[in-house]
């Protein structure tokens, strides 16, 4: 059995919103009994909309916040009782633009954070050079961070997070606000962290979670509503798979004939036809590969020209919908404003 590097059991966190000097506050349960574990050398994703409780969980794991109840250990150390031991083994990247000294150069930032982690001079020099190279900032290392783009800052954040070679890396929304090219760069860096590191990643980007994570917990309103391997989660969504074929425009008679033939194809549960400049034939089915083969054979046989083909598999968004009963974007923000 693989060693569990992060173990979380029934973690809860309640905030009290202050309403003024005399008025008592209202309690908000931001995290409501979350449990999960992360095996060594894997990427575990917490996926959920804003206010789901992801960042609150991250803050508890990174010792910034004490749990109201429940337990959590990182590399075997309790986050509430052994915070120093946890901090030494942890690299944390907080979301957003903060966390760097803008008036210092990239290299000076790493030098100072190396000291904060108790690193020796030689180690700081060696690791800084290596990580600046890794994040493609060697050429800009002597420039002040205030002159960096958002993507460059985020890459420097990653270098800072890895500087002391932590066993566990926590990344809170690492690609938020980045342009697509920078986001791809950062995702590549994250993918390269395993298996030498164990990574806990929070994101509300479905694609990011899908491509990076070995396991995912879908978090909503302070609870894990579904968890598992991304493929299993998508499979569990029980959403029909679809083969969508764009065709040259057909006459009404040909269209009727085509739909009748398509309905006879084995495994096809539903046929939808849309007319337009190009026509769109959508086939719902359980096995997209077999349906694609059969439908293309049919179209060749009746001499209908195909413009393009798209296969639509269930997504993590479908998994979220299946687990929560509502769309991803509809979730309310429950983040407390004040404690």
């Amino acid at each position: 059995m693989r060693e569990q590097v992060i173990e979380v059991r029934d973690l809860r966190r309640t905030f009290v919103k202050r309403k003024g000097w005399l008025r008592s506050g209202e309690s908000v349960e931001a995290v409501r009994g979350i449990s999960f574990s992360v095996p060594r050398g894997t990427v575990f994703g917490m996926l959920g909309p804003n206010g789901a409780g992801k960042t609150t969980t991250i803050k508890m794991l990174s010792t910034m916040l004490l749990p109201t109840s429940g337990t959590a250990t990182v590399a075997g150390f309790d986050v509430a009782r052994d915070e120093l031991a946890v901090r030494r083994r942890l690299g944390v990247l907080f979301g957003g633009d903060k966390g760097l000294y803008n008036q210092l150069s990239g290299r000076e930032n790493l030098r100072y954070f190396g000291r904060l982690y108790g690193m020796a001079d030689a180690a700081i020099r060696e690791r800084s050079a290596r990580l600046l190279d890794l994040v493609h900032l060697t050429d800009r290392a002597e420039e002040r961070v205030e002159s960096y783009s958002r993507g460059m800052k985020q890459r420097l954040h990653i270098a800072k997070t890895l500087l002391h070679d932590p066993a566990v890396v926590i990344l809170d929304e690492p690609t938020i606000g980045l342009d697509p090219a920078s986001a791809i760069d950062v995702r590549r860096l994250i993918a390269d962290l395993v298996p030498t590191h164990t990574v806990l990643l929070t994101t509300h980007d479905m694609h990011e979670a899908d491509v990076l994570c070995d396991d995912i917990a879908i978090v909503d309103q302070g609870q894990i509503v579904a968890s598992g391997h991304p493929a299993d989660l998508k499979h569990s969504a029980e959403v029909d798979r679809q083969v969508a074929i764009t065709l040259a425009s057909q006459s009404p008679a040909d269209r009727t004939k085509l739909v009748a033939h398509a309905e006879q194809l084995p495994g096809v549960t539903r046929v939808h036809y849309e007319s337009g400049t190009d026509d769109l034939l959508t086939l719902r089915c359980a096995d997209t590969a077999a349906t694609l083969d059969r439908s293309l054979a049919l179209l060749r046989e009746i001499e209908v020209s195909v413009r393009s083909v798209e296969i639509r598999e269930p997504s993590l968004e479908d998994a979220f919908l299946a687990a929560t009963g509502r769309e991803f974007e509809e979730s309310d923000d429950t983040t407390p404003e004040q404690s």
Partner: protein
Amino acid sequence: MSTHTESLAGKRYLDDHNPLWSEWRLIAATARTHLLRTFANPIMIMRAPLMPVLMLVTMRVVYSASGQRQIDGQDVVGYLAVGMLATLAWTAAVWGGGSALQSEIYAGTFGAVIVAPGRTTSVIVGNGIGGIIWGIPGLVVCLAIAVPLGAHVDIQHPVAAICALLALYMSTLAIGLGFGGLFILSRQANAMANFFQAPIYLLAGFYVPRSVLPGWLHAISDVIPMSYALDALRDTTLSGASFMAVWRPLLATIGTAALFMAAGVWSLRRMDNALRRRGSLDLL
């Protein structure tokens, strides 16, 4: 593009051999970072030597207008110059050390500093020392102006004067540490630092002798470590006093500074726990 071959639970690059040495290096690195960050600001560079000179000249004009030529048996300019030195040390302590964590909040680095294993006390002391070093050009310019303005310097025992100066800096660092946690817990560092400024000038005898304070205010003045350090510094630099003549105020400085340090360490521990319990670290 692999980072490296293996990760040894975060221990590979950590220097565990001498924790005290490691903390001292953090203090030195923080002081250096403080200086680099301050040096990046052109206004701060211009302000550093000008501010103490302007204050010294202003106070000199005020005393001239009052017709007073001596303060507690010492010449006015000399007395004020030493007070100015204390002002620079106080500025370093409160705005460098006491407000160090607030400054991290403004920079957006507070969370990153807190989740690092380095001690918060080292960060505060390092910022305080950085502030003291930053004040040195101002101090030199101030003294260079004070002598032509008529300051009568009489240092018979340089070692005693240096001890008094070090005591002054130590006392200000202790106060900075003492205020560090309080400032963060209150989440109003700037307001509190401003609030304490004028009373400290008066109570510790920066520009006005403590002898003129009403008796009941002495009770407060006597627990401020800088009060004693300033007495010792003035005696050794303006009246040629020996170490034996100032050992009592120096001892009192150490005693009261120790109280502030203990309060600082206690409040910082409380701060860490309180903020983690409240969940307000990220709200700062």
